[in-house]
């Protein structure tokens, strides 16, 4: 069974949609709701991440990590998902990440079906 690592804040309207979609998918796959990127320490060699991507209207798949925008690691508050993914890549580990990016809002049923088909 594929494991889906979900990021987002259920209390923030603009950041909660991936969590809503993942709840719909919970019956059909193993879902890990992540409070911080450190949850990825334990992920398998190939992991699928679900998160909201700002400014898109249709779901997208990101396989190319350099596309992710990262800030310089200047303080502990800069430990975001993109930093960790790039760190894992720079360290040359075996972990391969596929990111499914969702828009900030949409139809939960339609998008959960899309995620299931594209995971």
């Amino acid at each position, binding site marked *: 069974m594929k494991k889906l690592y979900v990021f987002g804040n259920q209390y923030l309207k603009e950041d909660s949609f991936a969590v809503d979609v993942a709840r719909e998918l919970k019956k059909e796959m193993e879902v890990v709701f992540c*409070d*911080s990127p*450190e949850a990825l*320490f*334990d992920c398998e060699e190939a992991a699928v991440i679900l998160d909201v991507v700002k400014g898109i209207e249709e779901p997208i798949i990101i396989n190319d990590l350099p596309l992710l925008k*990262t*800030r*310089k*690691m*200047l*303080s*502990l*508050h*800069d*430990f975001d998902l993109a*930093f960790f993914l*790039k*760190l894992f890549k*720079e*360290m*040359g580990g075996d972990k391969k990440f596929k990111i499914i990016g969702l828009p900030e809002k949409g139809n939960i049923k339609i998008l959960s079906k899309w995620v299931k088909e594209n995971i």
Partner: protein
Amino acid sequence: MARTITLNHITKIEGHAKLTLSIEKNKVNRCELSSTEGSRYFEGLVLGRKYYEAHEMTSRICGICSCAHVVAAISAIENALGCKPSKQTKTLRELLTLGERIRSHATHLYFLALPDYLGYESALAMASKHKEKLERALLIMKVGNEMIKLLGSRDIHPVSATIGGWLKLPSQETINYIKENLIKLKEPAIKTAELFFSLNYPSFSTEGYFCSLKDKDKYAVLDGKFFAGGTEKAKEDYLSFIEEYSVPYSTANFVRIAGKRYSVGALARINNNQDKVSINAKKMLKKSGIKFPSLNPFHNNIAQAVELIHCIDEAIKICEEIEIKPEQLSKIKVAAGRGVGAIEVPRGTLWHEYTLNNKGIITQANIITPTAQNLLNIQEDIKSYVPSIFDKKKEDLIMDIEKLIRSYDPCFSCSAHFLEVNWI
């Protein structure tokens, strides 16, 4: 020729800070270190709220030190209410706090301090050549993080700890699991200390006091008196010796004791309590080749590395000794009162004080963070340190000043994202 250096954003620290330096004829005329973040009003936010809300609200002061604020606030409120928590509760609070210190020290040492000493801009830049070191850091951080999650029920802003007890007790199996994970950290912690012993630290001595809690029988975490300037002082009397004051260039208060500057944090704790660290930590202190007490603030990194060993040993000891028993929350009789909580957290002594009315509503609050206590000392250290590096190139001078600031592991509670330097 006079020159002014303005570091508008000091990087690789927690939060926003700005430094203005004016130098003439190898003399620093003006040195102002300021926290430039907006006021956060937490002491005002809790006013009018019930006594049991303080720890949940003040936890949001910082995601890095959220356990610290939870435990300090609970401790102050319990003191205000005359509530005595059980031994088990106190031990679990200590374990939670140690977990946070393990996570915080590993993160600061490897991701913020180490790139400075190895000549990299960031941890990301050193990742390909120093994979093993960063893997070690990630392992230590993971275990610390997991400790917090398992004990506090969340990895930031824990919710299990509450006034008078523990809302969701960890099982004995959980404690055993934590212990097994901690045992795996013993060797990485030793390697961390060896790594930080091997780095070249600038030679410098601060003139500030080193202050920390000092406990009779153990390396102080939650209990003990505040050791300041050679004397031990009761926490509840802190207003009689700690003075908070404002300066026009900073939104954060400055703090001094009897008009003098002081510092808190790992180095202060090691300087004041080195005889109480674990056997392994003592061995490593000896191996460091540095004579403690050390007056060199750059040695705070070494102190953090030694504390990492001590915290792991202490947490293992707690896990071995504790037998989790179900227990009710301590009975709380709501009454008017004032309470002070002071505990040792990653960056030093954290103070919380609350006054409650007879309905248990908070009518006064005061919070003094470790960084606020360190601000004056950092500023004065920069003033004394800069003349010794004045002939360095601009970039190297800035790097050395930033290194000094970072050695204190300051936290200004929100992030700084870029460095901008103005030379006039």
